[in-house]
């Protein structure tokens, strides 16, 4: 058996203190926005970074705390995006409300596909969820009545608060930041809640967790439901942010499903603030590389991203936050 790593065993800290700490760290995320205020290009990238931080934090609930390596979160993301767009276009429902049925639908679908696939462990679960993602990719291309098929859906630009469409990019940045803050606070709460402890017990050893009286399947399903619900909201925000929804932009694994996991890995799997750190590092890096490399080298930014993924898997298993906590702990131990 492996020794429990940092963050795996609950310390004596109270829920209140964890929440305050998480809130403080999240507020630090506003610093880059303040520094780059007025620079439309970078504010835009920050908005994406905040959104992906929130999505990675949602993935982290089941992927990090629960140890269930889902590659299928693109499905919940896409359901959120398509539902919000359809409700807005067909029924005129404001996206502020539309995200809730969208997230609920993502959650229901997540429960339906997870119930059989949660019988699988480790890499088998990852393969099955990847297959789900690809199958839904094909279905989205196929059912043009709902998704517009390969051409996709275009949400017309009608700026206005109730449409969640803004001219100023900083409004999007604040919107995404708010969503990120909510997701991070939910994970901070989860970390101290019964469900969080159950999820971590399942990750550490499923058989032992079951022997200790934990209903493993139910815990996994609860974690997945929460994760998919939040991912669905993220998909809805994404829909109103980019306003062009075609299947490749919602289902491509390296851009969506795997990206959530990658960001979490870089920041620190199973930590509260890791996904935020990961997104604030990876999203701007990727945009910068795309701008500077892809003109000369097609796919250049993805070469770097692939290499980062391999190197992080080899040498940075606990992410930036994990490495930082490790150093801090050693220093405390030495003094």
């Amino acid at each position, binding site marked *: 058996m492996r020794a429990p790593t940092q963050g795996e065993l609950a310390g004596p800290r109270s829920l209140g203190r964890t929440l305050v700490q998480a809130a403080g760290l999240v507020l630090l995320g506003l610093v880059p926005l303040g520094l780059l205020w007025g620079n439309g290009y970078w504010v835009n990238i920050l908005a994406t970074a905040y959104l992906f931080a929130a999505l990675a934090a949602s993935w982290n609930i089941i992927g990090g705390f629960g140890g269930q390596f889902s590659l299928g979160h693109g499905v919940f993301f896409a359901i959120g995006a398509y539902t919000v767009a359809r409700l807005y276009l067909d029924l005129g429902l404001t996206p502020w409300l539309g995200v809730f049925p969208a997230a609920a639908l993502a959650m229901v679908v997540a429960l339906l596909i997870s119930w059989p696939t949660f019988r699988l462990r480790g890499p088998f679960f990852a393969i099955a969820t990847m297959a789900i993602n690809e199958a839904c990719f094909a279905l989205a291309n*196929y059912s043009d009545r709902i998704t517009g098929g390969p051409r996709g859906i275009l949400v017309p630009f009608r700026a206005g608060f109730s449409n969640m469409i803004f001219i100023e990019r900083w409004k999007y940045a604040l919107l995404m930041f708010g969503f990120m803050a909510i997701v991070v606070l939910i994970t901070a709460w989860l970390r101290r809640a019964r469900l969080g402890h159950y999820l971590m017990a399942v990750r550490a050893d499923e058989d032992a967790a079951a022997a200790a009286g934990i209903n493993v399947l139910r815990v996994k399903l609860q974690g997945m439901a929460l994760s998919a619900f939040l991912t669905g909201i993220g998909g809805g925000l994404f829909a109103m942010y980019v306003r062009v929804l075609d299947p490749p932009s919602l289902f491509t694994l390296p851009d969506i499903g795997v990206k959530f996991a990658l960001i979490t890995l870089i920041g620190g799997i199973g930590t509260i603030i890791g996904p935020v750190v990961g997104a604030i590092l990876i999203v701007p890096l990727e945009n910068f590389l795309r701008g500077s490399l892809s003109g000369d080298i097609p796919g250049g930014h993805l070469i770097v991203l692939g290499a980062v993924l391999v190197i992080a898997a080899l040498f940075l298993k606990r992410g930036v936050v994990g490495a930082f906590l490790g150093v801090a702990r050693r220093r405390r131990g030495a003094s």
Partner: protein
Amino acid sequence: METFLNILLSGILLGGIYSLVSIGLNLIFGVVRIVNFAQGELVMLAMYATYFCFAKFGIGPYYAVFLVAPLMFLLGLVVQRLVLQPLQNEPMMQIFATFGLLILFENSVLAITRGEGYSLAGAYSRAVVDIFGLQASLSRIIVFLAATTIAAALMLFLQHTMAGKAIRAVIQDRQSARLMGINVSRTYLLTFALGTALAGVAGALLAPIYTLSPYIGGNFILAAFAVVVLGGLGSVPGAYLGGLAVGLMESFAGYYVDPALKQAIWFIIFVAVLVLRPSGLMGQAGAEEVGLREQG
């Protein structure tokens, strides 16, 4: 009846392609317990290497295979030692690492070729053979025969040689295998390289059939996973027959349902098998959980 036979034949030949691609994946999966998401990209690399042999040196794909397969074996040795060996007991990190390799290989080829599509098809896939009045392309028949030969040779190798017996012992129980004096870490290394070399064979033989693209690996990998899950972990006949089964299902569903839904059909097969019989049709029951969290 004629249509039916045509669909049957094209399904079997497509199944040959899936079998060929899946055998290497299944060997790696069953023995080393690594889910190699980059297996399709290994096939893709071999396809480009084969094209390169033809374009630069005029070596045809059916000769180039003897060059490409050993090169892929070497690549397999390097990848296993540098990337996968250090992650042997960390399934989650393995997924990250092999997915990183997938993105890396795919985009490196994209960068080198600048997205230009290459094709050997003009020179090789026109030849057509007549089987009892049905037309079939020669290059696909060669793939089918190669898949059959490789499956048979691999089964003989696993049954009758010491190295093959060591591999089977590791599939069954790596702890006990180690206690019996088998060098498990070297078995992993050689098996992974062998699986990579088989991807090389597949790539060389498939080069005349497909138009080359950096993303072509994605066409194989999901089908190959479906085959592996269907056939059973680490089982060579399972991969071979599973490949044929998936090829037939895709072919019939493509004709009678809709070709656009083939991925959905793989997925249904997939989940049905995973749920009903997680060890696959020809796998050892319970094999899917062996070695996932074990030390050593």
